[in-house]
């Protein structure tokens, strides 16, 4: 049987958003692959541009005024100085020297990706999409030039831009710097035999990190002043502790320093590369979860925008949201209520890695137990959820058994309506985005999101 001659398909916002995650997933894959190699092929570059086109298309069609307000400052920056188009989260320069740019980038990413925003990498992809959107109406030649800056990763920042004449990495009689070669993110430093002890570039590692290198290869030959390898390592590299290894390390987490003295290789040192997202992940894994650290403080609190949004598609969206805090909050915090198997009234809110459940009727006496193993969420509560890999951090409160609560929890268990709760949470400092959903018997009955 043949299908009809004409078929009509109506797409919804959620269809477009789902496409957005596809584009992001493939962009992340390409970025990671190329970062690991330290180079990208023209095929990878072309494929990345294609996914940027997809992401731009989806952003374009979903763009409303608030989203526009967040993206425009990025476009303005890109228009003001070409160096902004070289931004890469590996470069720590931006974090220290232009924090407002990072903050704008995060605000924009939060607005576009909402609860799906969890790492700075996504903001990088978003910036590439803004580049694409900003070059719509210019000449083909100009567009081509800008499309050539849409890359899986960016080259290290130019020395002149970061330091002017003060760079430690400025080539002089003591050093020669090898060309980038195929590995774009490796800095090759040859220390000349006549280089004296005091000319060692003490700031080399810091500067390499700021500019966005992920590896330094240093060769020292024929320098008699090198008394011991250990001393050199101590003086030159000052490796930091790498014990506080964050839970999630999508791309190179260390600046790798390889050095050779008189052709003898030194043990490789890895210096923690404080990438934005790593730091936030590390902080979150050890900090008090009630203090959302992921988003910068508000400088100006804007009026709330509260949108009522429709029910999520079955299973997927809810599971996703529940997954979100998992990624940073470890299972050791998980608490499951023993003997509790049917949830009556469950709220959760997400103000940047924060989840709270309020259950209006709990069995008495209430016993909190640590789960023996990661437990799928849908086993804890009769919700239509997929098997989340790790049980998220729950705070479960019975309104009758209140001990010490933080302000957000107090709001959550108050008698206010969901909308009032949302508005009140939006008033809290540091809260940028809240998604509040209420379930009854496993069904979403209220669904609000708010921006601050």
């Amino acid at each position, binding site marked *: 049987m043949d299908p009809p001659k004409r078929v009509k398909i109506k797409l919804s916002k959620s269809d477009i958003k789902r496409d957005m995650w596809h584009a992001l997933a493939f962009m992340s894959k390409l970025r990671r692959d190329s970062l690991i190699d330290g180079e990208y092929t023209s095929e990878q570059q072309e494929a990345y541009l294609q996914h940027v086109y*997809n992401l731009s298309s989806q952003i374009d069609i979903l763009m409303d005024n608030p989203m526009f307000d967040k993206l425009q400052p990025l476009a303005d920056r890109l228009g003001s100085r070409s160096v902004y188009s070289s931004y890469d989260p590996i470069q720590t320069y931006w974090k220290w020297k232009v924090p407002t740019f990072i903050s704008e980038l995060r605000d924009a990413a939060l607005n576009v990706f909402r609860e799906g925003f969890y790492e700075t990498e996504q903001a990088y992809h978003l910036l590439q999409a803004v580049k694409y959107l900003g070059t719509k109406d210019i000449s083909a030649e100009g567009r081509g030039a800008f499309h050539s800056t849409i890359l899986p990763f960016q080259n290290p920042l130019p020395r002149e831009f970061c330091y002017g004449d003060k760079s430690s990495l400025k080539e002089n009689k003591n050093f020669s710097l090898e060309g980038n070669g195929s590995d774009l993110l490796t800095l090759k430093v040859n220390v000349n035999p006549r280089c004296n002890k005091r000319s060692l570039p003490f700031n080399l590692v810091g500067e390499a990190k700021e500019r966005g290198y992920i590896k330094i290869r240093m060769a020292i030959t024929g320098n008699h002043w090198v008394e011991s390898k250990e001393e050199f390592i101590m003086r030159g590299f000052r490796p930091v502790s790498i014990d506080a290894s964050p839970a999630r390390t999508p791309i190179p987490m260390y600046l790798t320093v390889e050095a050779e003295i008189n052709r003898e290789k030194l043990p490789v040192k890895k210096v923690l590369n404080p990438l934005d997202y790593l730091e936030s992940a590390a902080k979150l894994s050890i900090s008090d979860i009630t203090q959302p650290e992921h988003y910068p403080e508000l400088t100006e609190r804007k009026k709330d925008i509260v949108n009522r949004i429709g029910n999520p598609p079955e299973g997927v969206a809810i599971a996703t949201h529940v997954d979100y805090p998992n990624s940073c909050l470890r299972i050791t915090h998980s608490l499951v209520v023993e003997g509790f198997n049917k949830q009556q009234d469950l709220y959760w809110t997400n103000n940047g890695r924060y989840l709270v459940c309020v259950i209006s009727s709990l069995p008495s006496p209430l016993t909190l137990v640590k789960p023996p193993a990661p437990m799928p969420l849908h086993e804890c509560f009769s919700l239509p959820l997929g098997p989340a890999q790790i049980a998220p951090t729950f705070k479960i409160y019975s309104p009758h058994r209140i001990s010490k609560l933080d302000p957000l929890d107090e709001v959550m268990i108050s008698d206010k309506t969901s909308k009032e709760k949302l508005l009140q949470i939006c008033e809290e400092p540091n809260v940028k985005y809240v998604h509040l959903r209420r379930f009854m018997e496993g069904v979403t009955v209220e669904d609000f999101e708010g921006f601050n």
Partner: protein
Amino acid sequence: MSQQFIHPDQLQKSTTENYSSPSLEQILAGVKARKKFIPVKGVILDRHIPEGYALVEKQFGSQKFSILLPNKLVYFVSHPGEGGNPLEALSSVSEFYNEVREFEKGLISEGKTNAIESNWAVRAGESYETYLVNYIISGETKGGNLTPGYNLAVLEELNIPLISLKDLKFSATRDQSSKTIETMKLIASICLGVSPDQLAVCDLGNLVKHVTISEEKTLSGAEASTMACYMGSHWELKPEYRINPITGAEREIARRGMGQALNVEEFVRQQQRALNLDLLPHPFIKEKGESYISLPKVDELLNQLVTEVKDTVRPEIVPHLKNIYSMYINMGLIGEANPQAWLPTEPPKLSKEV
């Protein structure tokens, strides 16, 4: 070379009616060349719709995007999993996907955007995934219930050994079959960030669901008029194993084996203990003598698997081999342990003679 970034004063919103309309001759040429994706614009009368094609219009708000699509692809893309031979579907969907991508290149060179068009690529990718599942899996009735099981004929043709619990223990024999299993275990263990001896065989029943209309169902008028309803049945992945805001990116993070606060050196040592080094590709043992050891690339291991069988299977399967292996590893060894760690699959480019 320093570049000056010029951009309009505002990020202007565009419509999707931004692709150039092909002439009738171009459409006919496309039909003659048996193109799978022919974008059209404006009013098309029924009698102008070529034989064997359907006019599919996608709409978002007031924006529309229409294409001519071969009849068979209408249900390959809108009813993934249905419509007969999965291998034929895999090839057709791949061709369609690559034609969509080709069309996108034109839009990109003009700096345009079109979210509805890009939805076709995503749908094709998902459809491809579902046909992969149906290629590898077939239903078997156990105690009156239909349960998913591997299609043994397919596995045999592809020389893919059926993974059993026994295989997960480190085997001393070094025949081809155990070598394949060892490589697949290595890939899965990299994806999950565990050592190979910590892997478990997955239960297919937890990963896929059987989709069919088994009882009387009343269709709305809109459904009946806008969808061709082919009642059949197929297997498809449960939603949690498909890309969504978290799984999409995180499966990639996990794929690189760097999640879970992994101590890379310890991880590599575990793997080396468990596996014979001759299985490991170059990057794995590169600079082994030094303290820097890079993780092997999953892609290279997959390519290694493909190389071993590609000369012995039918040529039309070859382009899909890598994806078939990926899906088999996803379902057989990674499974529920971490849905985010699943290997991605993307429709391949087919060479013309296939």
